[in-house]
């Protein structure tokens, strides 16, 4: 299907230049062909005070084509998206839509011009039903301009069916899992029937099956002649879905090339300007005593869950989105209630529904939804990083800013949190860098058992391998790690043992040797022949 690539721009800059490119020379790359591009950005720049988020954003989307945009965390991808959406106004550069120069002052204007945007962070109205969330401002009307709820509901069901998901159309958006939130965002964007569809990491929270459905929809939209922009940190997705790929680094355009003419190694080199260590660098660790044991854990959302984690072991918790994995670990950590079952840490039973006791016993949980559960967006990195270890840093009841900053600096540099200053507000960080702050915050507590829920969601290749190395190293030091991941290669690459869940129950427990894509997916979907 990548045959229908439009007159492609020549790949320039495929040999990575040392240092940050000025962008001026490289960005003239896409020569102007006869038909105007669906959307074109030339040398867009954008600064927030001292921070230059974008130096020379250049991008050319053709109708009937899916275009990938990749780059490290903080490369400026989301900033570019927000300029396309009209949320930010560019400082300089050209923005053409169908050959016409445009100047969006608000997201309403870009929407009216036929651009639909899925932002990196879901932006839903928690009190309203998912149906209303999808159709807000464009609800179908009947006589007297009244909203036709029945028609709206039907349309929502139609969208869910097209996406192959089961979400109750009348339920409020509050309490949706992060994956379901993402799905609502996708439904919203599709229902706009836009000429240009921009998706900023739509798959970060989704697992295989949902991703496949999204891709099917994306391909159908492409074949209808729409232009799509797809941002992802997963290379397999970029290669499976996209026709063309643009790479950005440090806010600047690096190169655009047809997907057929490039490979992962080349892209990674363009992205980071150097070679990256191998992904999933699993070290052999000595597997020791059992640290965490969960028996018969049952709640309305899951039933009879047994699992254990030993010292030095990485246990992968695989399954489809909605299989109940996050719910189980939340119950284990004491955030949510459970009806029956026991949790023991190092042989001692843990009181249910008491996260403080869980932390004291040596558990740490890096949650899935960083916005709602992991970060305080309005405060500084240092504050966030040290929040969980405040009592440790406190001397005679006083927490000095110096102590806070020092502890923060260690972790920030270890995870390469790219930020000009530790006293910057976390809310202004790129999505991936926010994720790193959450991870660092919990690693700083020195836990015995680390539970991580999608630890590399939205994290770029370089840091991903760093996170994997770190987890592996922690296991080597005797930590037990329970890792939820929807990325199959990550589970298979990292885990000593894989536990698979489906519909709230454990359906398989596989040793490293027995775990392969087929065995995990068949346990996750419940059928060997599942599509």
């Amino acid at each position, binding site marked *: 299907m990548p045959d229908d690539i439009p007159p492609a721009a020549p790949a320039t800059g495929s040999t990575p230049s040392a240092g940050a490119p000025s962008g001026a020379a490289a960005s003239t790359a896409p020569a102007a062909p006869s038909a105007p591009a669906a959307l074109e950005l030339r040398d867009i720049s954008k600064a927030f005070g001292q921070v230059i988020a974008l130096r020379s954003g250049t991008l050319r989307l053709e109708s009937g084509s899916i275009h990938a945009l990749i780059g490290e965390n903080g490369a400026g991808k989301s900033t570019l998206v927000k300029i396309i959406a009209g949320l930010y106004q560019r400082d300089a550069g050209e923005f053409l839509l169908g050959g016409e120069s445009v100047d969006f002052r608000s*997201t309403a204007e870009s929407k009216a011009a036929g651009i639909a945007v899925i932002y990196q962070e879901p932006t839903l*109205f928690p009190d309203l039903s998912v149906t209303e969330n999808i159709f807000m401002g464009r*609800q179908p009307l009947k006589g007297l301009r009244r*909203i036709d709820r029945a028609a709206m509901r039907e349309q929502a069901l139609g969208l869910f069916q097209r996406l192959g998901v089961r979400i109750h159309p009348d*339920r*409020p958006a509050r309490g949706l899992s992060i994956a379901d939130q993402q799905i609502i965002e996708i439904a919203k964007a599709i229902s706009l029937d836009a000429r240009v569809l921009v998706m900023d990491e739509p798959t970060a929270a989704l697992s295989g099956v949902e991703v496949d459905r999204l891709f099917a929809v994306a391909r159908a939209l492409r074949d209808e002649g729409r232009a799509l922009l797809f941002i992802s940190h997963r290379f397999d997705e970029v290669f499976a879905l996209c026709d063309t790929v643009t790479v950005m680094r440090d806010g600047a355009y690096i190169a655009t090339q047809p997907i057929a003419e490039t490979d992962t190694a080349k892209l990674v080199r363009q992205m980071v300007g150097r070679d990256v260590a191998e992904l999933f660098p699993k070290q052999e660790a000595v597997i020791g005593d059992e640290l965490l044991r969960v028996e018969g854990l049952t709640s309305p959302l899951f039933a009879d869950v047994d699992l254990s984690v030993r010292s030095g072991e990485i246990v992968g918790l695989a399954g489809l989105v909605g299989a109940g994995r996050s719910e189980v670990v939340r119950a284990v950590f004491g955030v949510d209630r459970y009806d029956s079952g026991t949790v023991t840490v190092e042989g001692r039973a843990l009181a249910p529904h008491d996260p403080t006791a869980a932390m004291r016993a040596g558990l740490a949980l890096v949650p899935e939804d960083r916005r709602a559960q992991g970060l305080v967006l309005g405060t500084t990195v240092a504050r966030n990083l040290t929040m969980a270890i405040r009592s440790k840093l406190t001397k005679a009841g006083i927490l000095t800013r110096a102590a806070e900053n020092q502890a923060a600096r260690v972790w920030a540099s270890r995870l390469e949190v790219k930020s000009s200053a530790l006293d910057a507000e976390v809310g202004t960080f790129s999505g991936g860098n926010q994720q790193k702050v959450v991870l660092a915050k919990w690693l700083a507590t020195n836990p015995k058992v680390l539970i991580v829920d999608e630890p590399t969601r939205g994290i770029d290749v370089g840091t991903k391998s760093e996170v994997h190395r770190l987890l592996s190293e922690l296991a080597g030091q005797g930590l037990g790690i329970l890792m939820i991941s929807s990325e199959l290669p990550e589970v298979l690459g990292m885990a000593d043992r894989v536990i698979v869940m489906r519909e709230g129950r454990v359906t398989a427990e596989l040793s490293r040797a027995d775990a392969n894509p087929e065995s995990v997916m068949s346990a996750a979907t419940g059928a060997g022949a599942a599509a």
Partner: protein
Amino acid sequence: MSAATTSFARRGVLGRLSALAAARETGIFLALVLVLVVTTAKSPSFLFSADGFRDLLLTPSTLVLIAVGQAIVIITRNVDLSVGSIIGLTAYLTGVLFKYNPGLPIPVVMLLAVLFGAGLGLVNGVLVSVAKVPSLVITLGTLYAYRGINVVWTGSNRINASDMPRDFLAIGTAKLWVLPVITLIAVVVLVIAALVLRSSRSGRELYAIGSDPDAAHLYGLKVGRRVLWAFVASGTLAGLAGVLYTARYGTVDSQAGYGLELQAVGAAVIGGVAIFGGSGSVGGAALGAVLLLTINRALPVLGIPDFWQGAVVGVLIIAAIILDRLLALRQARKLTVMEDSAA
């Protein structure tokens, strides 16, 4: 069609009934019935007398108007503390217009006073949406500012019934069949507001804005403009309440409407309008207003001393908020279970 379309079938009769039973409005209504039954049992004339029945409907009518306005504002995650002062100013303006311009037709005077209320609401709205200062602060400021203007303007003056046309004052006591006209006006306003909030695009946008203002901005909703109109609506209804206040009581001094803003907020909260915006209905707020004032009238009948009345209202508000939390939690649990078992 396929499973997805059939399994989330529309609610049947039973579903509708259970939704009705779960609705906050039903709870308030039942509480109201309870208060009426208990009080009437003790003193039958509380309900079964011409005066008793009239007071039941008439007393809360002005509060219903401003509670509806308040609900509209609170749904957008704002609050309008100036409504009591707007009532004061518009009530006095009504009297002054009649007193010094006897030639003006009654409807013109009423319209001018309502428009004046709208103007005062517009000032609130502009300040909130342009200055980007929380509405709590802005309207606390205008609460004092408007009242201050009122005091300066009125001085020790007082408008009396004799200053106003008889036909105007008749509105305060007139009835259509058994229903007081003022109550009818409140009901008409309520129905219109309920329709707009439930079934119009702009009404739903108010909920979206209150539910998450940042998301609303990102979505491209005109947050500032909608919030501004919510304040205009609140001011307009307060203006109308001011006019009706004058018609009903016949005398106006500089303290008309004093303290009503807190009753309006209380009524809305009791009626299930979430103080952080995004949910609730004007119908609930109206029922809250009726319950609040009916309890106030019932307590002396039941022999409960004056000074307990404030405490009862306080308990009611706190109970309403706790009830909301519990219901929300249960609802969230139920939905997740429902989806999971359907999968």
